[in-house]
């Protein structure tokens, strides 16, 4: 313990005594590390931001069927159970999926599109409540504004039809349980429970809806078939596979496949380029640090021999260059972080606005800095151990005679 604490003290004293040489080592290390951090910051900033925005925006994960089809409840259920699908919900015919909304605070009646929703709907991510019966509704920002309503207000929803030559209208009082943000849609949309959407279509088709007391013809008991659906893949990486499966079944769909593939290709290519540069840089760093430590041990052979002569054990002497190498690694990393942060600010403040990007072009997470530190220290220690073993292998007698 005495030897260990003494060698830590001595290695630091020597390191600070030779501050010019130590400074050169620190600058040399940061000169290799800082560009690698900037490169990684750019790679992470540009590509990750693009990927994140793609992932975060549910429309990029949406797969939309083209035209009408015939999708049974069982077909929808099968897709719902797939692991690569986050959310799927049926849609009824567009013409049948409209409703007239009227509030006490607005004079106009608003014709609004109806969309079925349920828990975990990516389009309404962040919502606390979802409509779970006929009487609950979420309005789009645009619809809420036009109706001048807020969350918790009760409004009148009505439907009209021509039934046996007679015009009929039914009314329903619904509770606005939430209002979707403008980023969800700019259209007038009412998000409702699937049952209300189906009831609306049934009423418009002249069929009865016993639950709501709406008269009409009796419906058949056959399984329901939907003309369309709203489907979201779990990630952008799943979109391609789902599209291929649907097309195999003859379902023509539309998705942002090309855009996703472009970002994925950029990500892969930049990753390859980054890792090639990083590996070459890391190898260069390890060799240069190893070579300089090797030379340093030669230079310090005399002092290390004196330490052994005084009574330090060989195993402790190994620590001398290893510790000095750690000091270089930590201080070099610190300098590289400062250089990186300077360039990060420069790039994000001056370059990003010119490219009309509202996201950071270059950034690293806190854990990336610690990864860089860990890798630098480990590389430095491995290189230094070789020097340290050489130091401990020098016969003190030879070292002293070289004085």
């Amino acid at each position, binding site marked *: 313990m005495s*030897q260990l604490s003494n060698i830590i003290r*001595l290695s630091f004293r*020597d390191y600070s*005594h030779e501050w010019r040489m130590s400074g050169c080592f620190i600058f040399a290390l940061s000169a290799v590390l800082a560009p690698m951090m900037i490169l990684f910051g750019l790679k992470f900033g540009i590509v990750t931001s693009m990927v994140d925005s793609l992932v975060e925006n549910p429309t990029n994960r949406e797969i939309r069927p083209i035209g009408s089809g015939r999708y049974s409840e069982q077909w929808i259920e099968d897709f719902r159970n797939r692991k690569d699908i986050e959310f799927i919900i049926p849609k009824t015919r567009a013409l049948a999926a409209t409703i007239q909304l009227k509030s006490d605070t607005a004079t106009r009646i608003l014709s609004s599109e109806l969309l079925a929703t349920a828990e975990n709907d990516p389009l309404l991510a962040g919502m606390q409540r979802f409509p779970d019966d006929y009487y609950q509704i979420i309005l789009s920002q645009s619809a809420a504004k036009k109706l001048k309503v807020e969350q918790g207000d009760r409004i009148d929803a009505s439907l009209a039809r021509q039934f046996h030559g007679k015009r009929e209208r039914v009314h329903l009082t619904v509770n606005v349980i939430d209002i979707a943000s403008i980023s969800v849609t700019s259209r007038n949309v009412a998000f409702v429970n699937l049952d209300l959407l189906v009831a609306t279509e049934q009423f418009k088709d002249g069929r009865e809806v016993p639950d709501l007391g709406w008269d009409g013809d009796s419906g058949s008991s056959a399984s329901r078939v939907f003309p369309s659906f709203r489907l979201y893949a779990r990630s952008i990486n799943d979109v391609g596979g789902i599209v291929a499966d649907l097309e195999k079944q003859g379902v023509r769909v539309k998705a942002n496949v090309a855009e996703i593939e472009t970002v994925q290709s950029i990500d892969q290519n930049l990753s390859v380029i980054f890792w090639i540069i990083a590996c070459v840089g890391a190898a260069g760093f390890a060799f240069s640090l190893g070579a300089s430590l090797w030379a340093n041990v030669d230079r310090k052979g005399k002092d290390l021999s*004196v330490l052994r002569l005084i*009574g330090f054990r060989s195993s402790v002497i190994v620590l001398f260059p290893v510790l000095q190498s750690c000091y270089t690694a930590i201080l070099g990393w610190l300098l590289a972080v400062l250089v990186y942060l300077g360039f990060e600010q420069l790039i994000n403040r001056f370059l990003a606005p010119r490219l009309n990007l509202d996201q950071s072009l270059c950034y690293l997470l806190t854990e990336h800095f610690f990864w860089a530190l860990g890798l630098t220290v480990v590389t430095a220690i491995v290189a230094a151990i070789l020097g340290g073993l050489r130091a401990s292998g020098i016969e003190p007698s030879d070292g002293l005679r070289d004085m």
Partner: protein
Amino acid sequence: MVTRYFQLPSIYCLNSVTVVYDLKNVVKERLVDGVGFRLQVPSIEIKAQENIALVGHSGCGKSTLLDMLALILHPDKSDHFDIDPVDGKSQQVDKLWHHHRQSRLSQIRKQHIGYVLQNGGLLPYLTVRENIELPRRLLKLADDDSINSIAKVLGIHRQLDKLPGLLSAGERQRAAFARALSHRPSILLADEPTAALDPITTRKIMAVVMELIKGLKITLITASHDWAHVYKMDLRVLKQEAEPVENGRIYQSTFHD
């Protein structure tokens, strides 16, 4: 005066008949500039508190023998190589080398041997005080006034807070003696400690050192190529003889009384 400032603990006060070093047929071979060099020590017995001078011309193996005595160079062959720095605790050095007991050798060196190199061998990044107290720190000896005392005796007490690079050659050698003696070893080895100094400074330093080792009852073994100086200091002299052997392929150097 010396002993008053720098008392040696009683455990290290060896009986003057104790044999500190006992070497028989010790051989060390080296290759110097492509020519074989063999150092041969047929028999040397060094008693406690003896003052020995290894005398011979440059390159005859004085430093090699000192390094073996300092336990930093292992002999190639030996019938007998014992060290007894503490009365009655003889250690077989050749066996320790043979069994790679490096830590035991370090321990003996750390505790019982002081070594003065030709140019001091002070660590340039430590002050004179820190250099002197380093052996004491390794042994966890109490931080008493002994550093100031020995520095005063050797006349370097005003230089204690300076770095070695700022000292004169004479001051550096005094500091080197102070470091070698600071942990109160029982053996002091010195490799031509005054070779780089002028005769007046040499005389002054060696006078103080001789007084110190006498007071501290230390065994001194010094290497020198200066016959006149050695004879003035009244040391037991181990002379060196050298001759080419094995058809001149090997230059053999032998030390004897």
